[in-house]
């Protein structure tokens, strides 16, 4: 069917509302984003289908609820029963859980929490009659668990709550109402004004005001104009764009159609990384459905506005996340950036005005237009409005995607939401902003997170990766790691980046290998300065940030590597050795059994010792020891 009126949308909403919130039979929602699938969700889903497909039970695949640590996450709901999220539901457990659930036993040990408010934040703007959910005593409320209680989901609002392959479920959550309103009741200036007033800034890293970008593009000379979605999420450690595309593709499509209407464009592109095959599959299906419902293509919603979207897949080049490189890649060329004397909003793809926004930015657009700019500016800090999705990963207990209002402190994110550091180790730093960002040390944990504060701290917001590092992470090695990444990904056209990174990396490798010399730190700083100031594009212009920020906060680690030839974190081979602490060792024999070099000897119940000649510092014993009895010297 083609959607032409608001009534059409309302009808779909009425038709599927119960299916989503109050199904007549038992319903099993399995979180099936890449992370869930990696943890075994597809097997769980198949098993549930096998068991229940003929038994009046609905089995659905949804996106990711964000708490990836607990995947596979499965939500179960039924009439007159509480709506529960179960964690670590592997294929072996699903039957036991469902059988018990049907009998009214909720198997507390597998329950993550009971959902009390699964509704969309857009629901109240359309029809505020959400039914109360049944709740049960003794089980924690899903929304009030430490991982979720500080979060507020705008961009991720539908992820995990709908089947991404079903456009109608997106409509139930208030989807495409904003588009209808824009096409019928607003002109392009009004939309751009709302986006400007909302203070939305680019979520891909730069933080450029989205409304101003749209306005400039709208006013730029030249036809046709293009709208592009940057889904080339290359920052290692950041995966919010993947999650949005896999869990809620229509949110991005709706945002893009609204943007296209505001800018006056009829052709759009989504440039997706090659490493995200599932996102591409879901997007293809979503675009097909949107076309079938008359929400993409010619004469959208009967208003005469035309807009189509084409998917283009990247081919594995980090630099193609940069706007000019991305557009060249879209043109089928080698993705080397150009100097931006003239911005891509004026001369971009095919040398025409082009608006490029990141996935998360587009995903904010429908919500802003439904709820208004004032609502959006109610979140965040003075210059950074709204919420931001972070991928909280690394050495932290609760890993996953968290969407929090800007201005929350790093400490709240890492220790309250994240639950602190794994295995009671000591926090050392948090790396934000990907290879262009930096490491923020413990003394800055109370820093409110927004674009400005992070930049002042020598890091940056980037696309929102937040990699937590503990005492076992060597900061010189981290700098080496990022430079190795950048050396591989530098496109090679300008000398400061190509050669500078190479020399920085050579020196860092030497320092990690115990061959650092006096004066190395100063040379590192000098080269870093040249690379940052003289490179052509943003990749080169920020390439030495990992070196500069670690030097700024962890200079002593560099000095220990260079002067004492020691790696205090126990990472750089040859700069440390392991020794068994006789007081702590109770002779449990675990290290003895695990050591591949047979370098550990000792009787059971007696302290062991390590033969330094045989030890290769492979870290297996260090990680296996439960008694903190292996020291790094």
């Amino acid at each position: 069917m083609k959607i032409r009126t608001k009534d059409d949308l309302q009808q779909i909403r009425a038709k599927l509302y119960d299916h989503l919130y109050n199904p007549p039979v038992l319903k099993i929602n399995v979180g099936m984003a890449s992370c869930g699938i990696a943890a075994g969700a597809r097997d769980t889903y198949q098993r549930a289908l096998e068991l229940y497909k003929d038994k009046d039970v609905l089995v659905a695949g949804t996106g990711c609820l964000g708490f990836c640590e607990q995947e596979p996450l499965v939500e179960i709901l039924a009439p007159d029963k509480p709506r529960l999220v179960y964690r670590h539901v592997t294929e072996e457990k699903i039957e036991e859980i469902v059988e018990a659930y049907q009998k009214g036993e909720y198997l507390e040990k597998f329950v993550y929490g009971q959902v009390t408010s699964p509704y969309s934040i857009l629901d109240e703007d359309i029809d505020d009659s959400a039914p109360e959910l049944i709740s049960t005593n003794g089980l924690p409320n899903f929304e009030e668990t430490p991982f979720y209680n500080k979060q507020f989901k705008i961009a991720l609002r539908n992820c995990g709550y709908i089947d991404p392959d079903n456009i109608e479920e997106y409509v139930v959550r208030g989807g495409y109402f904003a588009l209808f309103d824009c096409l019928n009741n607003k002109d392009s200036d009004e939309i751009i004004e709302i986006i400007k007033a909302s203070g939305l800034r680019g979520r891909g890293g730069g933080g450029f005001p989205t409304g101003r970008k749209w306005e400039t593009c709208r006013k730029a000379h030249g036809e046709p104009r293009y709208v592009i979605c940057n889904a080339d999420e290359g920052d290692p450690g950041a995966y919010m764009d993947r999650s949005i595309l896999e869990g809620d593709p229509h949110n991005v499509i709706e945002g893009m159609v609204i943007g296209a209407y505001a800018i006056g464009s009829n052709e759009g592109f989504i440039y997706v990384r090659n490493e995200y095959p599932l996102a591409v599959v879901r997007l293809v299906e979503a675009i097909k459905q949107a076309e079938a419902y008359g929400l993409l293509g010619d004469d959208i919603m009967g208003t005469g506005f035309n807009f189509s979207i084409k998917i283009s897949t990247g081919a594995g080049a980090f630099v193609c996340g940069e706007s000019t490189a991305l557009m060249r890649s879209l043109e089928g060329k080698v993705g080397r950036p150009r100097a931006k004397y003239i911005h891509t909003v004026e001369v971009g793809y095919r040398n025409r005005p082009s608006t490029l926004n990141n996935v998360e930015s587009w995903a904010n657009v429908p919500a802003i237009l439904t709820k208004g700019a004032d609502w959006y500016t109610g979140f965040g800090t003075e210059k950074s409005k709204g919420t931001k999705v972070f991928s909280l990963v690394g050495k932290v207990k609760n890993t996953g995607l968290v969407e929090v209002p800007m201005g929350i402190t790093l400490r709240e994110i890492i220790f309250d939401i994240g639950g602190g550091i794994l295995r009671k180790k000591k926090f050392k730093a948090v790396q934000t902003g990907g290879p262009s960002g930096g490491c923020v040390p413990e003394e800055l944990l109370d820093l409110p997170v927004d674009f400005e504060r992070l930049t002042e701290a020598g890091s940056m917001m980037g696309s929102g990766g937040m990699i937590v590092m503990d005492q076992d992470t060597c900061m010189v090695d981290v700098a080496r790691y990022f430079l190795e990444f950048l050396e591989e990904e530098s496109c090679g056209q300008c000398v400061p980046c190509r050669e500078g990174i190479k020399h920085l990396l050579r020196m860092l490798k030497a320092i990690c290998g115990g061959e650092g010399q006096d004066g190395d730190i100063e040379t590192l700083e000098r080269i870093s300065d040249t690379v940052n100031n003289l490179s052509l594009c943003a990749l080169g212009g920020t390439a030495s940030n990992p070196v500069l920020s670690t030097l700024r906060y962890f200079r002593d680690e560099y000095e220990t590597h260079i002067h004492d030839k020691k790696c205090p974190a126990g990472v750089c081979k040859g700069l440390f050795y392991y020794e068994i602490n006789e007081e702590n060792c109770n002779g449990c024999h675990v290290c003895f059994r695990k050591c591949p070099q047979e370098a550990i000897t000792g009787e059971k119940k007696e302290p062991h010792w390590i033969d330094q000649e045989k030890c290769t510092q492979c870290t297996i014993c260090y990680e296996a020891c439960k008694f903190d009895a292996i020291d790094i010297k």
Partner: protein
Amino acid sequence: MSEHAYDIGTEVVPSDIEVDFRALDDLIVDRYGEDPENLIMILQAIQREYNFLPKSVLNYVSTKMNVPLSQIYGIATFYGMFSLDPKGRNLIAVCLGTACHVRGAERIKKRLEEQLDIKVGKTTEDMRYTLETVRCIGCCSLGPVVNINQKTYARTDPEKMVKALELYE
């Protein structure tokens, strides 16, 4: 990016690669409309079909689309997913994203290099495995992760991966 020294003059297609030029022609014309803007996607389709970019295929693409071979070579060597050498039957990709790195991905890489007796980027002599690294596949919460073909191994370690290798012939 690939360091392959591409011999432009001679034919380097291994004898066991049979190229279906009719299908290739359909791909270029019907699916991608001979549009040079679709060049990357055409090469991706070829890479998917043959696991690498055979020279005879690239020559055909060049002539058919009227794009110089040098330009195609530029694209094939710039983008990380393309390979000018045949790859093994099973593709192992160790994720070296930051989250996986701090959780010990480097050790998995080294262990697999030892086990297979090849360096990253290379293929075993029996064409059974190609070992590669990838910078983040977006499963950071479950790190370290390794992909073998389409399957993702999450929260893995060196010994688990060595065992997993046996599953792939």
